Structures are given as C-alpha cells and as structure tokens.
C-alpha cells in the first residue's frame, strides 16, 4: 500500500490531475483503465470532503473547479448529478456521446442493450428507453445515470458510496462489477471516495487487482488498484 501510482499500468498517461476544493488539494498522475481511491487528507473528515466536492449549493463552484482537468467531461455517479428532465431516457444516456461525437451508433446500441439486460433484467428496452425522466423510479434513474456514465467520453468515472446506498446488496454487486469491468474494457479510470471501499470489496471488484497507495506530494492520499 505504499508505492506510488504515478506510473501508468497501461495505455497513455492522462495529464496531471489536480483536484482542488477549498483547503483540499491533490496532485497525482492518473493512468487509464485503473481504479483510484481518494481518501480524505488528514484533518479533513470524509463527509466534509464529499460536501466540498459534490454536494449542493455551497460546494457547487468549488466542485466544478476541479472537473475540467479530469479530461473532457468525467462522469460523476454522486448525489446531485441528475438526468435532464426535458429529455427522454435514451436521449439522456446518449447525450454525452451525441455532444462529444465519439463512438459508433451501432456499438452504442449494442452496449446499451447489454447493460440494460444487466441493470434492468426483464425490462422491455424500447419502452423503457422512450420514457420521460419524470416517470422513472429512483433505481431506474440510477440505472440511466450509470449507463450515461459508461456511454460518455470521459476517461474518469467518479463513484460515491451514498449514490450506491439506496440500491439492494445484489444490485450494488452487479452494478459495481459492471462499472469496474466496463471501465477497464474502455481503458477509463474509476475514482471513488474511501467509504465506497466496502461496497467495492463486497462486489469482488478487487480480487484480481493489486493495491497500491501513495501520498501524492504530501497533499492527499491516493490509492490505485
């Protein structure tokens, strides 16, 4: 747990990642296709950290300040990140792809059907995808958010434990496995706060991965798997 995560395991290294939220700052080099754990630096509680980064009005500006360096729109799976209410489900899921113009439509459709069969088993794809967002339940919204994150062009997906909390244990396991597997297939990075660790471990996401941990320039703890 003490080696540095700065040497990319595979693929090209991303630009140096700088996270800044009020008093909190990290600096680390992120490699594609790896999982990173961001732990709260000493003296700052995890809840405070999450509040600063992700929650609500008072932290909106500071959280956005560190988003651009996360390379072309990272995907956040965190409270406060929502679907667009004036679009249907499929439009929401494909929005990042339609805007950034990456990927092939056929591949997107194939992936969408596969993910839907895992996340919403027994659901008829076309009727679900054409629903307005207002008619979705909480779990369905989260499924759409997860698919949008997987469909997006961002190289990094950030996951928080409280986003996963409303799901059943079985759903958490299946969803996290899908997230980890797809992130690695697509050579993207998966970032998550420290309190997500039990869920990730429960899902068996780390069994084949070797953990390392580093103190990045003395400003924060970063772990990579």
């Amino acid at each position, binding site marked *: 747990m003490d080696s540095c995560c700065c040497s990319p395991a595979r693929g090209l290294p991303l630009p140096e990642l700088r996270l800044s939220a009020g008093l909190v700052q990290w600096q680390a080099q992120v490699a594609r296709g790896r999982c990173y754990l961001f732990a709260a630096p000493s003296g700052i509680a995890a809840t405070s950290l999450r509040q600063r980064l992700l929650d609500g009005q008072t932290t909106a500006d500071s959280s956005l300040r560190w988003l651009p360096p996360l390379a072309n729109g990272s995907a956040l799976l965190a409270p406060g990140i929502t679907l667009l*209410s004036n679009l249907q489900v499929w439009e929401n899921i494909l929005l990042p792809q339609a805007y950034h113009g990456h990927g092939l439509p056929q591949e997107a459709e194939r992936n969408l059907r596969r993910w839907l069969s895992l996340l919403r088993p027994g659901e008829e794809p076309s009727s679900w995808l054409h629903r307005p967002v207002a008619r979705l339940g909480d779990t369905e919204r989260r499924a759409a958010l997860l698919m949008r994150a997987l469909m997006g062009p961002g190289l990094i997906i950030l996951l928080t434990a409280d986003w996963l909390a409303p799901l059943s244990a079985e759903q958490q396991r299946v969803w996290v496995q899908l997230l980890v597997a797809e992130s690695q297939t697509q050579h993207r990075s998966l970032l998550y706060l420290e309190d997500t660790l039990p869920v990730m471990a429960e899902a068996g996401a780390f069994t084949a991965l070797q953990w390392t941990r580093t103190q990045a320039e003395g400003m924060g703890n970063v772990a990579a798997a």
Partner: protein
Amino acid sequence: MQIFHNILDGLYLLLTLPGRLGALRRQAVRMVLLRQLLFTGWQSLPMVLMVGTAIGLILAVQLQGFLGGNSIGTLKALNTALFLELGPLLTGIVLVARSGSAVATELASMRVNGEIRTLESLGIPVQDYLVLPRVLAAVLSGPCLCLYLQVAALGAAALVVLANGGQALGSVLSEVLSVPDVLLSMLKAALFAGWVIAITCTMGLSAGFAQAAVPVAASRAVTVSMLGLFALDGLLLLFSRAGAALA
C-alpha cells in the same frame, strides 16, 4: 440598477453568441435548435396570427373612422405603423410572453434541480447546449413570425376596407407595401427576438437554488426583457431620427 445589469448581461450574451456558432457542428446542439425552432417558430404561429388579425381589425376600424373612410390612407397609416414599429414590437412581446417565460422557467428549474451542474460535469458547456439554440431559434423565428403578424394584420385591415366599400385590394396593397420596409421590420424583429430571449436565458441561469427561485426568475425575466425590448425600440427610433436629421 439591477435591471440595467440584467439587460446588459443579455446584450453581452447576444454579442458573444456568434463566436459560439461552431457548436452547431454537434448533433446534440442541432437537435435542441430544431426543438426550439418548433417551439418558438411554429407553435407560436397561432398566437401571432390571432394578435396580428386583432390588431389589423382594431386599427383599421379606428383609422377608417378617423380618416373618413379613406381606404388608401387607412392602409398607408397601418403599413407605416406595422412595418416600422408595431410588427417587430408585437412579435417581441409575443415572444417574451410565450417563449421567454418558458425559457426562463425551464433554465431556472434546471439550475434548481442540479441539471446545469450535471451538464458541466459531462463537459457540455451550458452556453453552447442550452443558450445558443434558444437564442438562435428566436433570431431565426422572429422575422418569420413578424412577417406572419404583419400579413395577418394587413389582411384583416384590407377586409375592413373592402367591407366599407374601399378600392380593389390588390391595387391598394401594391401601392402601400414597400420591400425595404418589410426587410427592415424583419431585421428589427430578429434583433428584438434575440435580445429578449438572451435576457430571459440570463435570468433563468442566474436563478437561485431554492424551488421558490423558479417563479421569481420567470417573473423577473418577463419584466426585464419587456423593459429591454421597449428600451431597445426607443433607442433605435432615436438613432434613426437622429440619422435622418443629420442626413
């Protein structure tokens, strides 16, 4: 003072939009533009036609009485009023009432619900995805709506003139209609439409985060954009008169 700032924010937004036209290369932005064209340009049509017809009827009846049944005088006066002032102004008012309030409410709701933050987190600039298509749709729809309004008003006025035993419609219209006036009024309508929707976008995006901020933003957007519309019309009139005096 705050209203003045809001109006200037709208002006700044309008002036900086040409630099963002490159975003139209993106499919997602074009889809929003098409929806906005449908909403602002097409679905406003019945309202614009009704307003135009009503204005044409009212003005023609009043002018006929005032001018003693002079049909050419009636249509000339109506033409001057419609193509130089009323057409673009009424189109702007219709756009504020219908599209402006809807745009401000929609953007304020998106801000309250965290959708604006979501877009930014996805690397989608709000100005490109939300503001550009709305303002551009207004700029494109405004001249067409203005023309429909003027045609409806002139048609209604012509019917009043004919009903009162006026001259043959075709000869009267060919005498009073002027192409430069029509083009000038369309240009003004485009400017007014872009201006008011830019102001409402600014107001919607600057709403607070509480649910109560949505109706406040919508109300302020309508008020400020209406004031901005009249202020711009007044300024244009002032400049055109000053230009004519200097010439």
